[in-house]
């Protein structure tokens, strides 16, 4: 087979130029700070509050998607109903819709005068410009991940397995928890990790609905942008490096999960 040298050479060159050198520069820049100052910046109260919010909101949103994602995947694979094809295609909308568009439309929808914001306001829930709003935006962004990882596993699943469980006297709930759930769990957890990782880095869809109050509704990516706009390059870089480390760890975890779920099926 020809072309190995050329294709690998180009791949490495392009990867280095576009991805590795810029990311390495970020690490290099932060190392010029010295450890004490670096640690001081990344553990400052405002930064800590932003991590807590970013991780917490991403986790809650991924959890919501875990439950509803499995439900949606199940309904799309097992049942036929009107508009099923349309719903199936629409699941990918958060992948295709630009985040700024999602951001303004969610902010309008859940804002005090919005179609959903007004009724929520009436029952005392302030959805927009609060932590609830951040979770809503991250739920939107993470929705396709779990549906699209669980769906193929459910499609491959043998219905006979459930019938066997049922004929052996297992009820619906028992069949679900003992037969179905263990089979789809590796895929579901992979989807969960993907949605969680995406949520942590997400910016565009969140900032419109978040309110962006320091210490309360300011996500970490926004804190980086704010520091940059005030020309605090050292602070922005240190926090960016903290985020990069988390991204790398999550990427390795996702790879391990994918190998595990691949080995199971």
């Amino acid at each position, binding site marked *: *087979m*020809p*072309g*190995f040298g050329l294709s*690998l050479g180009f*791949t490495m060159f*392009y*990867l280095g130029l*576009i*991805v590795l050198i*810029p*990311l390495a*520069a*970020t690490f*290099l*820049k932060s190392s010029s700070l010295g450890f004490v100052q670096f640690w001081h910046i990344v553990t400052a109260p405002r930064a800590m509050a932003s991590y807590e919010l970013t991780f917490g909101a991403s986790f809650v949103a991924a959890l919501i998607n875990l439950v*509803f994602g499995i*439900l*949606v995947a*199940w*309904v799309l694979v097992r*049942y036929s*109903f009107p508009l099923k094809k349309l*719903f199936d*295609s*629409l699941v*990918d*909308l958060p*992948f*295709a*819709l*630009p985040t*700024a*568009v999602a*951001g*303004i*439309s*969610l902010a309008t*929808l859940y804002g005090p005068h919005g*179609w*959903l914001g007004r009724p929520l306001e009436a029952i005392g829930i302030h959805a927009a410009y609060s932590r609830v709003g951040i979770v809503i935006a991250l*739920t*939107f962004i993470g*929705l396709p991940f779990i549906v699209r990882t669980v769906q193929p596993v459910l499609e491959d699943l043998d219905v006979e397995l459930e019938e066997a469980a049922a004929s052996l006297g297992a009820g619906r709930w028992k069949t679900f928890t003992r037969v179905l759930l263990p089979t789809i769990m590796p895929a579901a957890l992979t989807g969960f990790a993907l949605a969680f990782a995406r949520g942590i*880095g*997400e*910016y*565009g869809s969140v900032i419109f609905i978040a309110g962006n109050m320091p210490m309360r509704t300011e996500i970490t*990516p926004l804190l*980086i*942008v704010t520091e*940059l706009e005030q020309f605090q*390059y050292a602070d922005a*870089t240190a926090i*960016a490096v903290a985020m*990069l480390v988390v*991204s*790398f760890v999550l*990427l390795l975890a996702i*790879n391990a999960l994918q190998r595990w779920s691949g080995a199971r099926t």
Partner: protein
Amino acid sequence: MRWLLIGTASLFLVLFLFLPLAVVFGTAFSQGIGMFFGTFADAGTQSAIWLTLVAAAVAVPLNTVFGLAAAWCIGKFEFVGKSTLITLIDLPFSVSPVVAGLAYVLLFGAQGYFGPWLQAHNIHIVFAVPGIVLATVFVTFPFVARELLPMMQAQGNDEEEAALTLGANGWQTFLKVTLPNVKWALVYGIILCNARAMGEFGAVQVVSGRIEGLTNTMPLQIEMLYSDYRFVAAYTVATLLAMLALVTLVVKSIVEWRSGETA
């Protein structure tokens, strides 16, 4: 039970997917069709549309060539460090777009490593069009490679080896044998890459400097209009990107249907 599950799932999808989309089109046309088209007469909006097209026109072909090269060497050959390479290709997916933008500022900005040299030679990358293009290339980096890789791996080398034995050269084999086999995955990768290239917000915002008429892309223009409380204009620009998203979903359905047919 069954209808309860279908009902709950449908309600969830309507609330989280259908309504946001409906808001975009509803608000854009809320002041009538004249107001809708009036937005496009604005020079700032026109220039934002143009810049978005330019960024995508550079980023998509570059990442397509990269995707083909990466899928070829990873899919057709065995070598040490292959799984590390695959992980590195995925890297831009897990890096926050804001951090990606910052990385380019640290390289090419006034305070950056190449900043003084660039300034001395009067080359502007950050807060100018090249920076926007670079940030777009970064965030859309893995899309084509990601779609092609599993296809190339699944196809194996048999057909290519047969072509080579019959006297075809490397490029002929690639163009006449490999490419037709992976064409649907390639089409899907390209449209996904394009959708993200035209819609990227965070990474581009960091490197743009947001000068209306010069360094605003469509998503940045939407943000600017929205912050100025020009909601109808913001949503009007947003409808173009929402339409792009819908076209992407339609093409995806067609690709799935066609590739299911040939498989």
